[in-house]
């Protein structure tokens, strides 16, 4: 009887674990595909892709954020190009500030970084400007995919 009880319990655990695992696979597939088909998905140029690599090689995310995710030493850069301008961003990159060192980037690297920031700028708005707070506390943004 004792054996049987233990056996039954083991089957239940496996069933729950299995059900959760299957749900996780389906959910993950959705997140990888339609769930993240952004309303604004500009194609990335080779120059912007190079800029993305420069951004990573200098570990800019240690201080800056995209969509509020990243470090806190410097400002969020999601819409730095449209909120200010390319020239504004370029001046900071080339000269640095009290908080940000001058990384001595080449002209090619600086152009690439600007191209990458322009690419990010076209993917959405942060912080969101056009949104609705629903009755249950959930939030729907104008930038969400349809």
């Amino acid at each position, binding site marked *: 009887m004792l054996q049987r009880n233990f056996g039954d319990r083991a089957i239940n655990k496996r069933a729950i674990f299995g059900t959760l695992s299957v749900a996780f696979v389906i959910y993950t597939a959705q*997140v990888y595909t339609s*769930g993240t088909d952004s309303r604004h998905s500009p194609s990335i140029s080779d120059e912007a892709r190079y800029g993305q690599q420069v951004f990573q090689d*200098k570990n800019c995310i240690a201080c800056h954020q995209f*969509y509020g*995710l990243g470090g806190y030493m410097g400002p969020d850069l999601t819409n730095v190009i449209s909120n200010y301008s390319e020239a504004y961003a370029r001046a900071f990159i080339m000269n640095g500030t009290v908080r940000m060192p001058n990384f001595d980037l080449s002209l090619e690297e600086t152009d690439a970084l600007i191209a990458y920031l322009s*690419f990010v700028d076209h993917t959405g708005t942060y*912080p969101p400007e056009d949104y609705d707070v629903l009755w249950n506390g*959930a939030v729907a943004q104008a930038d969400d995919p349809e």
Partner: protein
Amino acid sequence: MIADNPGVGGLRFMRLGMLILACGMLFGVIGGFQFLFPEFLQELLFTKTRPLHVSMVVSWIFLIAIGGIYYYLPRQCNLNLYSSRAVSWHFWGFLITGLAIMACYLTGKFGGREYFEFPPVLSIPIFLTWLLFGVNYFNTVRQDKEPWPVYYWMWGTGIVFFFITYTEAHLWLIPYFRDNMVREIMVQWKSYGALTGSWNMLVYGTALYIATRISGNDYYARSKLAFSLYFLGLFNLMFGWAHHTYLVPSDTWIRTFAYFVSMTELLIFGKIIWDWRSSLEDWQINRHCNAYRFLFAADIWVFINLALALIISVPAFNLFTHGTHITVAHAMGSTIGINTMILLASIFYVIREELPSEVHAGCSKQLRIGFWTANISLGVFFAALVLAGVGKGMYDGASFQEMMLGIRPFLFAFTISGVALMIGLWIVLWHGYRLIGVIIARSTSAAEATMPLADSDHLQSVPE
């Protein structure tokens, strides 16, 4: 008490973990001062101190959790490790890869994404050593023919999900993900959320194991309630990550579902409140036990951090708190208040089990000072971050410098309390490091002492 070497490999992981935490906190404090005085230690830019700090404190969590598993299974659970040699390989693999990563950070060689800023090629040995750990773990616990207690499930789940989430964290290397900014960010944070869940499984499994051993009653670890909470944790690990990305323009159902999943943690919250009185009674009984003291502190920090996590998981509140220091308070409050306290409990539980009380009785006053210094300063640290976050949340985007100036007093309190927190934990770690060293030395000498005996037995058995 110590007759053989099983479990010593695990103790070496623990010692390395304590050393790494001590160094990691130092880099954290340097980073704190760089926040206040940007020209402080310019040779070691914030772009270096931040990943050094984060990588080291995360390594501490993994090293102590792994060390505990390598120690508890052969020493207390009556299971022979499938391969003791694999434990050594794991240790050296971890150490060498870790040193390579530190060297990359110090020399400014990055290339990866946030939290894994090192060149991605270094992820290969991390995968391989984790594979060794997984194979060793599952082949070891397989020997136990009884239904597994919940902590075996939790440790196993943590190991499996580390593989899944660490793989997911590298999907940005594939253009399909990298070239779509929203998809890349979402998948990145999906992996981070679940990766945290995977180490929480290792750490909470350890907490349950120690609590079971201290109480001397294995019933709870096999109860339906324990398994219900485990599956609730697993559910949150799998689906509860998206509160980090509420403001990234993804499909609405992802955040609505994550919101629902996060709110299931209210059940855990309610359980803590329900158990409060009996927790206090247990505290009265066990307050002289160092391991229990750390477990009790973790209990209080679970309550505080869960309350904050629940608040910031409501999207309407998240609009205000996202991207502010409140998120940092949530992250650091959990890793220090919950994970670190549980892992310190694990270390001092091992010390209590292995060393006669007179060996560590002399340091009890210093341990108490370290414990209270760490916990009180963590309270100030946590509050300062929340207040700095409120200040940033009120920032209207006009001038970033002005906002930073406005929250400077809170950042100052954060940094000073960070120094006190480091000193408090250093005191605790020093005794932990020293006493675990005593256990290793005794264990090794005891094993060596038995070797000539074995040899002489062998000689006696040789026919003349």
